[in-house]
């Protein structure tokens, strides 16, 4: 029964995938769409298979940049959120600046980080990814830490619990779902940040550089293969976070929703 329902949920998704893929293949063949816009899926697959060694290595290299940036940026974001939740006044004063800082095109600073850490140093891209991850994590975690029902606070006070107790037993657990929302956004951003950061220069065994080179050499199937890999890694990063989220916050209402709502 459950299996049947699961299948039914997934059917439309798979159907669209199949249709989309089929259309892609069919149209590009029928209309001779030029390779650089949309190579045939089969061409991309072939190119991937032929180059899997190099592409995979490049992908892993960039993934490390992304993951490192994610870890550092999100970690700092959570710490900042904890601090700002504890010292509300500071948070209120700083919030407009945090919002403004979020509107700054951080990736445009890649040339500068390249200059700081060196073009070939992964840290130059990692720092970009870290800054990109910092804000969504901080904003969402802070929201979670401060969205506590006042009765909950009164309850803890009735137990003679101080600020620390409230933090430990109420704010932090209830902030987890919010934190994960932020982490999921950050996961996706970290990969994009790493790849696009590499656009401004990086070692040849990095995925972003590889994609850029391929497109400049008009080897579009290979470029697209690289992009597909980058996508896959981004999804994998997102998926990992989602798995951890599911394991730790299965109690939250959003995890219990039956169907798409």
């Amino acid at each position, binding site marked *: 029964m459950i299996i049947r329902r699961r299948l039914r949920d997934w059917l439309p998704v798979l159907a669209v995938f199949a249709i989309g893929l089929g259309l892609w293949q069919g149209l590009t063949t029928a209309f001779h769409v030029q390779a*650089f816009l949309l190579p045939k899926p089969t061409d991309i697959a072939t190119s991937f298979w032929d180059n899997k060694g190099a592409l995979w290595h490049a992908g892993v290299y960039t993934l490390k940049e992304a993951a490192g940036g994610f870890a550092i940026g999100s970690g700092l974001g959570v710490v900042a959120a904890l601090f700002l939740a504890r010292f509300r006044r500071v948070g209120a004063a700083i919030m*407009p600046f945090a919002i403004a800082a979020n*509107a700054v095109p951080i990736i445009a600073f890649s040339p500068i980080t390249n200059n700081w850490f060196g073009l070939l140093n992964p*840290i130059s891209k990692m720092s970009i990814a870290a800054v990109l991850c910092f804000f969504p994590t901080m*904003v969402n975690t802070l929201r979670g830490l401060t969205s*506590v029902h006042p009765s909950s606070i009164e309850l803890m006070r009735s137990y003679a619990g101080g600020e620390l107790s409230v933090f430990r037993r109420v704010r932090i657990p209830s902030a987890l779902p919010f934190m994960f929302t932020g982490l999921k956004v950050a996961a996706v951003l970290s990969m994009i940040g790493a790849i696009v950061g590499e656009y401004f220069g990086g070692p040849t065994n990095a995925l972003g550089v590889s994609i850029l080179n391929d497109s400049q050499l008009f080897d579009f199937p290979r470029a697209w293969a690289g992009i597909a890999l980058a996508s896959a890694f981004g999804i994998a990063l*997102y998926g990992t976070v989602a798995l951890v989220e599911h394991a730790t916050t299965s109690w939250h209402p959003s995890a219990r929703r039956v169907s798409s709502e």
Partner: protein
Amino acid sequence: MAVLTTDVAVAAGPKAPSRAGQALGRLGVFVSVVAALWGLWEGYKWLWQTTGWTWPFAVDDVTMPHLHDVAAAFWQPTTTGGPPLIRSLLDATWFTGKEAVAGFVLGAVIGFVLALALSQSRLLERGVLPYIVASQTVPILAIAPMVVVGLGSKGVSGWKAVAILAAYLTFFPVSINTLRGLHSVDPRAVELMESYAASRWRVLWQLRVPASVPYIFTALKISATASVIGAIIGETPASIQDGLGGAIVNFNQYYSLEPTFLWATNVVCAALGIVFFLAVAGTERLVLRGAPENVA
């Protein structure tokens, strides 16, 4: 269940200061934060240069130019006898800004319409939504060169291609949030309208769409930033000279000779992003005057 952000909300605080007082206070905070950041920068620079530490990176006038030098750079000519930097940057900002706005509007409209369409069919929504979500993991900025070159060969001028890129980055948050907003309506409100024999269209336009406006604005604020980033980045691999992205690529090449130009460009990029964001936020405040929902 209403969730409040204050602790035991029993008593209101002391009488709030006047509007002028508030504005002055905020200005004061702004000035002090800027001053603090300036001080931090110069202080860090001084300390690292005096001690000669090289972690995380060596500090000198190239890696960390004095902020007043960066400010002065705006008035320097970029080429001998040419116009001052600020002139060329303003032109570049106009160019990039156009791309961003065009992309933003295009993406927002597409996102909105797509959400409307999906909200009318559960099946369609379930089938298409995962792809919309997955599409965001494709580093679209990575295929920027291909998009721009490809469209260029078809006669589409460079800036339009970049605008399309910006549109792509915009449409996702807008469609997701619009959808959420459309679905957020209290079912009892819908029942009420149906009791008035309202057609599906009417329920959509008079109930769901207005309810989704706050959600849409949340997305628009994210998209505003994304469009600017998309526009700037989109220009770089395609070597479009006229915009801010082009300026970054240019000044990056001369970085060791004149680091302040690149920094000045980044300041302008940041300003563009912030101004665009504030424009959307300001519009939101006008449209949602007095609405309780306050999502930053």
